[in-house]
């Protein structure tokens, strides 16, 4: 019973603190795991700049893309941003 409890606690901690995103390396997709800066049940994140494209222009971002960048920036990099300027996007692209 004790072991089960420990396993459950570890699993919950893992879910809350371990996340991942996928990065493009040429034609390959690599999964990158990381320790979240804040606990959340969200496990999958998107770094839409972990590839060989251009940095997205702030005025061309969709609502969904803004959400992905803000989430990644907060939980991966520990930066809370409202994504108001182009330099905010540049800051949040870091791997």
């Amino acid at each position, binding site marked *: 019973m004790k072991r089960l409890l420990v396993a459950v606690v570890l699993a919950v901690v893992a879910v809350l603190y371990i996340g991942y995103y996928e*990065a493009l*390396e040429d*034609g*390959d*997709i690599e999964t990158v795991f990381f320790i979240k800066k804040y606990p959340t049940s969200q496990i999958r994140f998107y770094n839409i700049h*972990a*590839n*060989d494209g*251009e940095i997205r222009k702030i005025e061309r971002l969709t609502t969904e*893309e803004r959400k992905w960048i803000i989430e990644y920036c907060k939980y991966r990099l520990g930066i809370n941003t409202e994504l108001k300027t182009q330099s905010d996007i540049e800051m949040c692209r870091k791997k």
Partner: protein
Amino acid sequence: MTGMTFTTTAKAQEVKPGQSAAPVPITVNDRAATREAIIKKVRSLNATFVERSSWGALKGKPDMVMDWDYTMIALHHAGRSHSCTPGVVQMQEIQKGHLSQKYDDIGYHYGIDCTGQIFEGRDIRLQGSSVFKFNTGVIGIVLLENLTTPEEGGDWVAKGRVLLNSIGYSTINTIPAAQIDALMHLIDSLKSVFVIKHFGGHREYPGQASEGKVCPGNIGMELVRNLRAKTRLLPPPAPQE
């Protein structure tokens, strides 16, 4: 004529009776015709060219960024998980992967498989996504196999390959002659319509090495150097300060 349409611009001029009209310069703006010219040129060199529709490409997203006046070509390899398998399947898989990573379409303009078939990737009228933060004016061409040497990458995959090599199982690929010929034909065709000045491996372009890029691998880079000597193209430009 084959029913193609052209956009032209010219200034109106007044012509008095008895006078002949002065020659009017006409600006022809037809990038679609240029795309077609590239395909025709490649085929005239006896290379096989497979258009997007023929390999089952998915439609790219709307409102993609346009590009033109290309002066550079970046050579890529497909990555360490790739090998000489049929090009159609590889192009489909790469496009699927790129779309899943929020690209607007496949990132490369052209792909060449090991048999020398040339595949059309992202439409040449659109900016590629193959050189991080340096895509303007760059045509991306991918060779559809792995062109790294075992130690490249420095991670567990590299360690495994080095180990396999040490016990006599080679994981080093050679570039097929048909693929090199096709690449030469494609470069010649692109040079026939654009003023191409630079030809380089992905990792040679400004800002790429510091991002940890190994593409197109040591084997790919050897090919790049050989082709630069043959084509007399220059290496990629130095980074701007």
